[in-house]
């Protein structure tokens, strides 16, 4: 697939703090909303100065083609995200995008396998910031009239994100917290079995911590479910040159390294060795 990524300066037009640590940033850009597909990311410079040095990858939370805007979810975890979260509205942010391969949906590029849509049920499984690429995906699925269930896991209730945003799309949004302060107590993976139905073909889309992904991948294999995983990884070039952000594809004994930025970030569960 010929990448349509561009080097652009996008204007930060809106900041909306979702929790104490997570901010939703809205950018105006004439290209990215029209080009992007769910699961893709942008690679941006938190600061116009050279510190921090490297760009940071952020999944597209959603895009609005008509308005020419796109949104990112940013959690303040380190220097880069702190600086980015402190940028002011109307500032320009230097970014490259859209990058990477998105979720495998039917499209016209010929690169994506056409999945069977009739009688499908779509389970989105997100741990924490793993929710970041899922709104765009859920919206596209709902626009096709699909059944979408979002299973969201957090440590505690104050980290639960975006429930109203997904409900507005018409998706069922189910929460679990590790401390039991909201929803079912425990890991989000423990919610999955309840939503497996025999009469519908289940498709799972997962993003979050590696432990969660490992469980989801294993469960999908056991149950023979279609499953796609979006990997989060530190990156240096974001384009495929440096080979920093590699993951194992194949089997534990016979694998090759694939680039999360270029060959992913979305992979099929059956090909991935999650460590």
């Amino acid at each position, binding site marked *: 697939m010929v990448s349509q990524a*561009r080097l652009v300066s996008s204007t930060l037009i809106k900041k909306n703090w979702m929790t104490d640590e997570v901010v939703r940033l809205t950018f105006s850009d004439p290209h990215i909303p029209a080009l992007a597909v769910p699961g893709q990311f942008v690679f941006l410079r938190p600061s116009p100065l050279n510190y921090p040095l490297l760009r940071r990858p952020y999944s597209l939370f959603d895009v609005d083609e008509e308005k020419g805007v796109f949104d990112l979810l940013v959690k303040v975890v380190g220097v880069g995200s702190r600086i980015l979260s402190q940028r002011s509205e109307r500032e320009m942010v230097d970014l490259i995008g859209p990058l990477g391969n998105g979720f495998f949906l039917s499209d016209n590029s010929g690169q994506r396998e056409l999945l069977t849509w009739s009688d499908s049920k779509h389970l989105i499984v997100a741990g924490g910031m793993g929710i970041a690429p899922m709104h765009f995906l859920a919206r596209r699925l709902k626009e096709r009239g699909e059944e979408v269930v979002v299973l969201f896991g957090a440590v505690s209730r104050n980290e639960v994100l975006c429930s109203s945003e997904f409900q507005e799309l018409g998706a069922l949004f189910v929460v679990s917290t590790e401390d039991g302060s909201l929803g079912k107590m425990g890991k989000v993976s423990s919610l999955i079995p309840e939503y497996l139905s025999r009469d519908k073909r289940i498709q799972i889309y997962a993003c979050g911590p590696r432990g969660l992904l490992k469980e989801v991948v294993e469960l999908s294999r056991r149950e023979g479910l279609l499953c796609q995983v979006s990997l989060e990884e530190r990156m*240096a070039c974001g*384009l495929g040159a440096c080979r920093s952000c590699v993951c194992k594809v194949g089997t534990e004994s016979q694998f090759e390294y694939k680039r999360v930025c270029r060959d992913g970030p979305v992979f099929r569960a059956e090909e991935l060795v999650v460590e």
Partner: protein
Amino acid sequence: MGNNKINLEVHLGRLILKNPVLVASGTFSYEYTELIDISKLGAVVTKAVTLRRRQGNRPPRTWETSCGLLNSIGLENPGVEHFLEKGLPCWRRWPVKLIVNVAGETVEEYAELARILDGAEGVDALEANISCPNIREGGIFFGVNPEMSYRVISAMRSRTSKPLIAKLTPNVTDIVSIARACVEAGAEILSLINTLRGLAIDPDTFRPRLGKGFGGLSGPAIKPVAVGMIHQVYRALDVPLIGIGGILDYRDAVEFFLAGARAVAVGTGNFVNPRIPLEIIEGLTKFLEEKGMRGVEDLVGKVRFEVGATWPRFPRTEGELTI
């Protein structure tokens, strides 16, 4: 004032480049053609090519440090046959000089790579990577020893008639002794520096940040080390130098020229902003224009030290390094 009297062309021995701005090995790939016009570059240096496919090191492979990047990729590449079949034809679609960086585990491997690539059309020069710190055999093991450096370069020299560049490691006591050995063995151009060996540790887990443990440091953090080494070699030897290490803008490039480099290569800067090499070409043109200079040659080695400035002194080169 137009820029028509500025000529950025540089002659690195037999290798003539339309401008002195290159992109360094391992930091640039064909994917960059989607974002910038690579035909404007002085040359592209490929990621290291080895005789056989290399899987690379276990991740994490990079860790960002203060103004720097620590990496241990491990020369992941599909091997020279794949390069000739798939990689080279892609690069050849572009009107840009191509320098192929090669790495081996033995002297024979370097020689074999030189032989194989000697006949390859579209390869304008070879760069011997005798400085990679991240592989178990070869690489830096040659580059830290003048005798071994000599053996690698002379073995390659006897197998290829293409312009030959030796890429040097800064992880040595005396860079000049290595540089001299490479020139005596037939290297026509030297590029320096490769990464500085380093280690980053996670204070919470007590574990190294990189999967492999040690890595090589690049980026602005190492620029003064690189500029210093360029100048040491420039003082000691009459050989064209390509300066590499933390270059992010044209002023960084000018520093390297003043120290004695005839060309520069952008490495980690390509990750920061893929436009940096092109911005340097533009910035350099304006800078030369403003200074009333005609080309980069007017800058090469023109650093002005105060009388009594201190110099690095090493037993083998002390005599050559006094002002």
